[in-house]
């Protein structure tokens, strides 16, 4: 089945991105297709390569980045939400790309299910 994922929160204030990551990982392991992970609102902070968690903490930016590359999953970051929060092309972690909000609607059209993770 085709899933679209929407992540509305960043890696630290809320559990949303962790839950989304765990769900996405489990879905891929079960053979489902992830059409796209779209990062909106403070969720754009998941894409920042300026993030440096402490060494004993999980690094969600890195985890998403690796998942995107390993499974060839599109990690799309809303460009206007990103700009507002200081996220530009230069500080995107590998595997993420800036895109318009149209890609969120496109994910809804292309997926069998859209699952939203937020606060």
């Amino acid at each position, binding site marked *: *089945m085709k*899933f679209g994922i929407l992540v*509305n929160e960043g890696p630290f204030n809320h*559990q*949303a991105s962790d*839950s989304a990551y*765990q*769900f996405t*990982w*489990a*879905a891929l*392991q*079960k053979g*489902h297709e992830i059409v796209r992970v779209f990062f909106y609102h403070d969720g754009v902070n998941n894409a920042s390569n300026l993030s440096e968690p402490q060494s004993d903490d999980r690094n969600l930016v890195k985890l998403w980045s690796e998942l995107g590359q390993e499974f060839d999953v599109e990690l799309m970051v809303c460009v206007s939400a990103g700009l507002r929060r200081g996220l530009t092309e230069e500080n995107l972690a590998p595997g993420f790309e800036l895109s318009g909000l149209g890609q969120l609607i496109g994910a809804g059209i292309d997926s*069998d*299910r*859209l*699952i*939203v*993770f*937020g*606060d």
Partner: protein
Amino acid sequence: MILHTVNKSPYERINLDSCLRVARIGCGILLLEDGVIAALATGAAAQALSVALSDKSVYVLGPDLDARGLRECDLVIGIKIVDYDGFVDLVAGYDTVQAWL
């Protein structure tokens, strides 16, 4: 039918109340993150979940229970525990997902 997800404690937000008000007979409700707190049999929200269980399915995400020191024996009877694989199966099994954020 819809799978509703609730990720906030009923003692902090009204998300679960709103979900239960709108949710139709036969739908599923998955409690995750702080939403798992609603599943406690000793809590004030237990009554509302027991009523919901009469015509809806209620699930709780096990990893979020474990993380908060809660166990199966602490839960309202009838609530089913699922892991992330189970979460994925639920999403696939219901027609749509509505996240009560």
